């Protein structure tokens, strides 16, 4: 199945609040990876499910998430 969305989590900015996990309707993010600060931070654990909706990015209090969408276009 083609990719629809992708996120990049900036590990230096993530404080591990887990709000993105709560807001993601596709459950693509989980906590569990230990970040550079020594605390569990967000991790893009299920890339296949991501739709690139952007909610995690807009809702992250630390603006740590960049969101991309993949749009398929058929040439005419």
């Amino acid at each position: 199945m083609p990719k629809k969305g992708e996120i990049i989590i900036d590990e230096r900015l993530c404080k591990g609040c887990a709000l993105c996990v709560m807001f993601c309707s596709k459950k693509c993010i989980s906590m569990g990876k230990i970040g550079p600060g020594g605390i569990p931070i967000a991790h893009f654990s299920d890339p296949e499910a991501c739709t690139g909706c952007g909610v995690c990015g807009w809702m992250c209090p630390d603006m740590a998430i960049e969101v991309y969408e993949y749009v398929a276009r058929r040439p005419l």
Partner: protein
Amino acid sequence: MIEETAITKNLVCKTPAFRLLPLGFCAGCHYGIIFRLIDEVLEEMELKGITVCIGGGGCSAMGAMAMDVDAFGGPHGPGTAIASALKRVCPDNFIFAIQGDGEQGAIGLGSFVAAAVRGENITIITMNNACYGMTGGQLAPTTPLGMVTPTTPEGRDQEMAGFPFHGPELVAPLRGVAYAARGTVHTPANRQRSKKMVKTAFQKQLQRLGFAVVEFICACPTNWRLSPVDCARYIEEKMIPEFPLGEFKNVEKNEG
């Protein structure tokens, strides 16, 4: 003939160009969500070049420090007085002040109401986390009844401290007030609604219709002693019943 599908990768959401990242707020604090939202509105309305942001005394000062606009921060309480004067001197600039609920409802209450009485063409963003966050979560005018704080160890009691303070509702009846509203950012839908409130409030200043205030209920995981996820539930179950969301006043044109 083979049809090729071109796939383009579009950027949907990227980290804004803030002056100071990482933000100094606690993990799960809603201030970051709100300041990002404000930054988006300023960008969309093309106001950043003429904006001066007045930060308050407390966590709100850090937002003023972080956004990439001319800013000043932050004495505790007088944000509305500072913004009033600066707007009088520079009426063509866009001036808004960020205040905590504590400084607005207590020490700064005189200035808050006086600016509303005068109908100053400024916008106030109130960050309501129902306590004095920076100093350790003490009782604030907005603290709900029963809430435990370091200065109300048995919970807020109406005998000693009365009932919670509602800033936007207090000033809404004043003729100088063009817009008074309350929103949250604890769900994406609320974030979108609140963003519209901020946009409306900012427009009131551009249209010189008078005083505008938007209050945000903000989670404060550190002082509420709840996880960021549980804070969202607390907002839903305890805060919103006490502090209703919506617009309390929206003036479309100048009152005669």
